[in-house]
């Protein structure tokens, strides 16, 4: 299992008001990748290119060893795709869809599908148009999960799901990768979920990949230092500082994406007292990163 599950190499795509530039990243087999970024950053476009639904202007995409979009029909036998925008046929029932998918894919697991029906609290006989948004999403997830595909590509799978449903879905995703031949790429605004189950995090903003690395080292590089300064002290300008917030008077909070113990010492040597060195949640990192880059544009 050495070949990556998917590979983007220098992918570019231009639209009138948006450009995806030099997108390159890779997902190793058996891993979960969390794909995050602000609205309009290019997540959905990237995923569509991944699925062969959009032809890039430049660059190469390989999924499960197949070139996309040319070999997409072959690749999609092993890919389970779900998007928050996707809809099933309104006038058909969930049961019809289950039979439809089961007839196409030889890997359909009817027993597992029945289990998921119960866990997601869905009914076979219900017509899709009479379902709530959350039920519709769960139905699509059921169809995708019951096939046990080698690669799951999920574009905002948690949107519209209540906390119980989200938990069930997370649970199913995690049990999928107990099989190390299976991989998952999912995009989500729920940074908590991404932080919890991702092995790798890929961060996109304004059509560019800001970051694509393993979660632990990514989270490890970020810290917030709470400093106490004697009045009138100017903080030294140090590399890797993303933001400095003055909390009035003598307190300051410094956000860094390149933390080393030497950084804390540098501040101490400059005369500031380091009261606390805090780890940051993915949500805090996300906000700091995006706000930081937006300030640069304005400045």
């Amino acid at each position, binding site marked *: 299992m050495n070949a990556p599950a998917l590979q983007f190499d220098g992918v570019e795509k231009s639209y009138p008001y948006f450009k995806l530039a030099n997108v390159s990243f890779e997902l190793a087999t058996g891993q979960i990748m969390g794909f995050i970024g602000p609205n309009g950053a290019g997540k959905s476009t990237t995923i569509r290119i991944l*699925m062969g639904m959009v032809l890039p202007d430049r660059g190469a995409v390989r999924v499960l060893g197949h070139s996309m979009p040319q070999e997409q*029909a072959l690749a*999609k036998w092993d890919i*389970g795709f779900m998007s928050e925008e996707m809809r099933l*046929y*309104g*006038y*058909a029932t969930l049961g019809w869809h289950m039979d439809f998918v089961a*007839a*196409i894919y030889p890997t359909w697991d009817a027993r597992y599908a029945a289990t998921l029906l119960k866990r997601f609290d869905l009914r076979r006989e219900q017509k899709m148009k009479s379902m709530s948004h959350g039920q519709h999403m769960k139905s699509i997830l059921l169809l995708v999960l019951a096939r046990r595909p080698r690669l799951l590509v999920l574009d905002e799978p948690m949107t519209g799901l209540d906390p119980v449903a989200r938990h069930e879905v997370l649970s199913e995703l995690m049990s999928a990768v107990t099989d190390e031949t299976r991989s998952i790429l999912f995009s989500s605004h729920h940074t908590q979920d991404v932080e919890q189950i991702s092995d790798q995090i890929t961060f996109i903003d304004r059509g560019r990949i800001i970051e694509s690395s393993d979660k632990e080292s990514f989270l490890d590089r970020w810290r917030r230092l709470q400093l106490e300064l004697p009045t009138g002290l100017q903080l030294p300008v140090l590399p890797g500082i993303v933001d400095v917030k003055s909390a009035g008077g003598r307190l300051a909070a410094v956000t860094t994406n390149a933390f080393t113990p030497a950084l804390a010492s540098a501040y101490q040597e400059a005369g500031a007292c380091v009261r606390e060195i805090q780890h940051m949640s993915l949500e805090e990192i996300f906000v700091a990163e995006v706000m930081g880059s937006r300030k640069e544009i304005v400045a």
Partner: protein
Amino acid sequence: MNRSVFWCIVRRDLRFSGILIAASLILGAVGFAFGGHGKIGSFVSTILLITGGLAPGIFVCSIFIWGERKEKSRLFALSLPISPTRYALAKGLAALLAYVVPWTVLAATAIVGYTLLSVPSGSAPLFATMWLFLLDVFCLFLCITLVSDSDGLFTAGIVFVNTSIAPFFFVMQNIPSIGSHVADATASWGPAAFTTMGVEVVVALVTFTFTAYRISRMRDLV
């Protein structure tokens, strides 16, 4: 393996358009029944035949092709192991079959009526040119729904479908060799009729070719 998904989609669309296919056949049959019963009978017959010969087909395109794209059920279909081109071809084929099967049945019924059942065949040239015209209108509409993403073009298509029949009829009726002999017992097939039919067949073929060409050149499908 690609082919089985292709046919699953075709079969699914055909099954769900069953009602529309039936409607086409029923309207056409009733239309034939009204034919030849005086002026009002002919009028009603014409309306029913035109409706039955076109409306269901337009609905099929609007619901199963255009509607599905708008509703994003297309994303579901594209997640299946099929290329977007073959998917578009499957949708096109299903819509075409849903239209052409009843169209052929009704055309055959008319032919049988005119030749074997001694229905006065004066109206045959008009029927033939009209029937092929409906096919052309359908093909154009199918092309628009398969190939374009533009709401404007779709609306223009609907408008065209609704407003083109009357002018066509008007023109045909005023061509002496076609329109003047409608009440006759035997048909008078003239060059006007054959030319018109020839043009109509060519239009259908050109539309097909153009549609197939555009489908094969699709770059962004969602």
